[in-house]
């Protein structure tokens, strides 16, 4: 448990992806079975405990802590779980202090000044004397609980026995160990490690094993993954996947650049709309007992079935579909803003199911009736997909239409105006086109060549920098997060109102210049934030690119941008000539056709 705690503690502070993989791999390499397997389970979210809930720990902590001290501590730390982890004390935590015993009674200066030297020599260093052995004070006994014991206990212990069991572990663990235990019980590590990253670290233990190879076998495996580790370490066979509805790593596309078109023949490609939804994989199959298993996976392989019961029940086939989650109401695809209201909910209410009905718009077929189709060419898979969708006759699952085109110019026109090119009122939910080679097999990952995405051009607005904040990680000494505003009519003339915040899109060299601008034009400081000089005749204009805009009550301007980034720094442009808020509101009210720059990046 302590090693696992040390791992998630260290990884949680580490911002770099590769360093995280190294830390995880180092742990897996040096930790024996089954401990590492349970750690992998925790990292991939494969552990759930029925009775163990945070409330138990809170109750235990309150039994042992002075309420005033707990409140003051909680206020200071700002996190209840962490406060409990830090404040927890085992009964009789420090043995009578050896130092006090050795030094006798406290020193009395007036009586005896001369014994100072002697007492100095005799006084042992504190922590050597007593602190090091003290239970609960970062030096748990060597027989503190193993992660496997903890997982076992949390899984099988009854409701009544859990509090005492958890208390005994808390007593035996140090601060970090207790924190890790709390994380396990709350079920969310939140240390910036995805299931995919953990599997990548496992793959790195082996020779020539790719993360996708681990992904392929993953769903047939269960903690503590002895067969998986044996395989990657070359001690065992590749595990056979026995899951009837496994996740298969999706095929991803590269963005296409203008110059790529010269090398691509339009006749080799098929085109589809790029839907602005959530990529999903819907899988159904029969297990050994003939029971149908249906699952919905996110792009990264998380099982998200529980969030979409309305979609799961519609999976009446034996196979694996690749498609996009959309909200469709009265035959019309809603925008991403609407979809967002259905996402990130822990529980799905009947009301939500009616108001935001989930819809799967499919574009590929990976497996059908037990046969893996991924090696077959796109056109053939597409034909089988069309047949399947027609046979299903399920209103919640439909086909992502292909866009007819003969040349890249045709497609550019369709991309510029999807509504007139067949998408009709669904055009709001389209963020560009997908190009797929007619002969392309379905390859996991992001192979270069077979699939391309051709996103519509971003919206652009010229805004004025108003505030800057220091960044984090590698940019921590630089002012790298910028809040920018557009003009509107205020009570005393034109005024800037913040419309968004962006922290990327510029090069390192540009960052140095932006940072210098901020430091040299600071007008006010608010902690880590600086206000810079701005006004009709002073200030820096930033050309901001963004993907969309929505109304927002949280923002003073009433609008919020999607995916804003700095497209260009307009050192040349007077701040007074930056865009007005009206420009953003026009995008909101009239859609993209009027405001959207079209044709600029055509082939």
């Amino acid at each position, binding site marked *: 448990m302590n090693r696992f705690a*040390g791992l998630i503690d*260290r990884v*949680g*502070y*580490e*911002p770099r992806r590769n*360093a995280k993989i*190294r*830390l995880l791999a*180092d742990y897996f390499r040096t930790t024996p079975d089954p401990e590492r397997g349970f750690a992998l389970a925790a990292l991939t979210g494969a552990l759930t405990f029925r009775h163990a809930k945070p409330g138990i720990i809170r109750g235990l902590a309150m039994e042992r*802590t*002075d309420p*005033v*001290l707990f409140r*003051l*501590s909680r206020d*200071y*730390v*700002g*996190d209840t779980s*962490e*406060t409990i982890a*830090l*404040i927890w004390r085992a009964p009789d*935590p*420090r043995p009578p*202090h050896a*130092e*006090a015993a050795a*030094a006798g*009674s*406290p*020193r*009395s*200066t*007036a009586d005896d*000044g*001369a014994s*100072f030297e002697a*007492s*100095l020599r005799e*006084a042992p*260093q*504190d*922590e050597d004397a007593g*602190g*090091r052995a003290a239970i609960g*004070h*970062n030096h748990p006994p060597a027989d503190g609980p193993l992660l496997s014991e903890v997982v076992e206990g949390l899984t099988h212990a009854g409701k009544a026995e859990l509090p005492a069991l958890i208390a005994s572990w808390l007593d035996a663990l*140090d601060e970090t160990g207790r924190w890790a235990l709390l994380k396990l019980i709350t079920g969310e590590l939140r240390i910036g490690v995805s299931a995919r990253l953990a599997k990548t670290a496992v793959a790195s233990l082996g020779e020539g094993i790719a993360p996708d190879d681990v992904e392929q076998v993953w769903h047939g495996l269960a903690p503590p993954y002895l067969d998986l580790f044996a395989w990657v370490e070359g001690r065992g066979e590749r595990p056979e996947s026995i899951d009837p509805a496994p996740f298969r790593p999706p095929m991803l596309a590269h963005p296409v650049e203008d110059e790529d078109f010269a090398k691509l023949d339009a006749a080799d490609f098929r085109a589809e709309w790029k839907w602005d939804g959530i990529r999903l994989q819907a899988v159904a199959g029969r297990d050994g007992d003939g029971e149908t298993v249906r699952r919905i996976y996110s792009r990264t392989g998380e099982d998200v079935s529980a969030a979409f019961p309305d979609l799961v029940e519609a999976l009446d086939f034996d196979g694996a579909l690749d498609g996009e989650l959309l909200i469709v109401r009265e035959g019309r695809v809603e925008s991403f803003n609407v979809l967002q209201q259905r996402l990130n909910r822990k529980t799905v209410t009947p009301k939500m199911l009616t108001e935001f009905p989930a819809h799967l718009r499919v574009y590929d077929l990976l497996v059908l009736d037990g046969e893996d189709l991924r090696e077959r060419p796109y056109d053939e898979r597409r034909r089988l997909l069309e047949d399947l969708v027609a046979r299903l006759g399920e209103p919640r699952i439909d086909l992502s239409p292909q866009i007819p085109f003969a040349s890249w110019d045709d497609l550019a026109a369709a991309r510029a105006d999807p509504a007139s090119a067949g998408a009709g009122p669904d055009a709001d939910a389209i963020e560009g086109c997908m190009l797929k080679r007619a002969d392309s097999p379905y390859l996991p990952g992001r192979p270069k060549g077979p699939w391309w995405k051709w996103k519509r051009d971003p919206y652009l607005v010229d805004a004025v920098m108003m505030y800057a904040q220091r960044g*984090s*990680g590698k940019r*921590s*000494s*630089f002012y790298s997060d910028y809040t920018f505003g557009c003009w509107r009519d205020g009570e005393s003339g034109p005024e800037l109102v913040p419309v968004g915040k962006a922290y990327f899109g510029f090069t390192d060299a540009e960052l*140095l210049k932006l*940072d*210098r601008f901020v*430091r040299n034009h600071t007008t006010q*400081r608010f902690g880590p934030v600086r206000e810079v000089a701005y006004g009709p005749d002073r200030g820096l204009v930033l050309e901001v690119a963004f993907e969309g805009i929505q109304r927002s009550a949280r923002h003073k301007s009433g609008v919020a941008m999607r995916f804003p980034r700095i497209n260009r720094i307009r050192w040349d442009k007077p701040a007074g000539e930056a865009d007005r808020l009206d420009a953003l509101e026009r995008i909101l009210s009239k859609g993209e056709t009027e405001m959207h720059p079209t044709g600029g990046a055509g082939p």
Partner: protein
Amino acid sequence: MASRAADLLTLTPQGLYCPAGDFHVDPLRPVERALVTHGHSDHARFGHGHVMATRETLAIMAIRYGEDFARSTQEAVLGEVVRVGDVTVTFVPAGHVLGSAQIVIEQGGHGSSCRLVVSGDYKRGRDPTCLPYEPVACDVFITEATFGLPVFRHPDVRDEVAKLLQSVRLFPERAHIVGAYALGKAQRVMALLREAGYDEPIWLHGAMERLTDYYRSEGIALGETPKVAAADRASLKGAIVICPPSSIQDVWARRFPDPVTAFASGWMRVRARARQKGVELPLVISDHCDWDDLCRSILETQAEEVWVTHGQEDALVHWCRSRGIRAKPLHLLGYGDEEAGEADEALADATPAEAEA
């Protein structure tokens, strides 16, 4: 007793003042006569008329402020009872940094005496670079409460140093930049690294150099500690570099090979504090008492009354009262983590280019 103690030591705008001896302890502004517990800049300030402190503290003040930091100075010998006006004072080791001392102030003879201990900053944890704290029996114990909440329990420093060394082993191509206060913490980290068997050079930011040289001249073994030259930085793969806390997020630190940002401080116990500073490798190494040691120290003094100068006063006062010990917060402003304030200010004011100089 309480009223007598309150007469013996009063609170003035300059800080704690003893009328019977006509001196201040750790005054926050220039005064005529100052008794100084230790060399950190929030306790040892420039410009007093007369300063009494340990030999080491006087030397540290001279290094930081120049030889003329006060009109005159007087060395306090540890354990020696010295009469000042109508009181006697005694300096006793506090275990905080080299030369740090508690100051015992006593008035009256046997039977009717009153003894106060101004502990200054102190700690009980292991530190190879200074004399350990000694408990002194007293009537009134005046303590800080920097880490005066039960969430603060400092781990064994050896484990923290092991954490650093393990990271160095795992990332041999990256430099480890360790933020540590220039006086005390930096040298303690060096000494602990040596104790752990680390015998590579420990590289120092220029701001560390003079105080580290002074520690060495006092016979504290720190091994080889070269100063980092600007041109060296890119080549220091796998090195441990110690710099002031304000420099860990500086452009100065970015020039090292893929730096790992570490910070040695008791504040690192709280994740949010580490995150705010952008620290990737928090090392919980403190030169202050943790909660348990504050409580234990109070009990060991057998004091009837406790005054809390600064830090998390409310919790410690609450604890004392729940034990039947009279306690009051002094709400002394101006003391705090050594250099924290000035460092943040310096960072805010320095442009990357300036900070690099």
